[in-house]
């Protein structure tokens, strides 16, 4: 089983993306192949320079930085959404692979999770 976790929500404002990341990390921890796809405002998870001290929240970019340790296979990022939010693939907080979102992309995974 190969899984894709889709994060299409902005970080910090709600807990849905965070709970999706927890699910993805759990799959990886149980040795299931899993990748993440960031799209829409979800690409902001990968923005550098996050500091949520004033919100009394954890740094989500740092949380995502543990992806490799858990054994997450790849972080994919929608290149159109990157452009919409003035982000460039060279300056992200974690190494991510730009992709074009299409039915074919989703078709490569057995299990797709979009919380």
């Amino acid at each position: 089983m190969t899984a894709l976790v889709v994060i299409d929500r902005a970080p910090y404002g709600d807990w849905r993306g965070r709970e999706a990341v927890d699910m993805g990390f759990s799959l990886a921890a149980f040795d299931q192949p899993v990748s993440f796809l960031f799209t829409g405002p979800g690409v902001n998870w990968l923005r550098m320079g996050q500091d949520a001290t004033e919100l009394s929240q954890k740094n989500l970019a740092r949380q995502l930085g543990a992806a490799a340790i858990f054994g997450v296979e790849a972080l994919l990022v929608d290149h159109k959404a990157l452009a919409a939010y003035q982000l460039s693939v060279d300056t992200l907080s974690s190494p991510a692979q730009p992709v074009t979102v299409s039915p074919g992309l989703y078709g490569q995974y057995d299990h797709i999770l979009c919380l």
Partner: protein
Amino acid sequence: MPSLHIVNKAPDHARFQTCLAAVADEDTLLLTENAVLAAVMAQGLPGTVFALSADLEARGLAPADIMANIGRIDFAGFVSLTEATSRIISW
């Protein structure tokens, strides 16, 4: 393997568009809950499209109101769609 896409968001929800962008021609799209409102809209929907009858009825969408290419199914029909494929995506 074709996918079954299940979407429950209203047509103006950002997730609804994310869903549409993932549906291949050979896929099936099932509209549930607020998404059944898309069955009366002019926007074309990709794939083979069904809408859940309980949700259509709640929202007052009669068979005559919905686009001709959209099938009405009940929960038994919903289960049948899930028998046909293991690639099921809930948007």
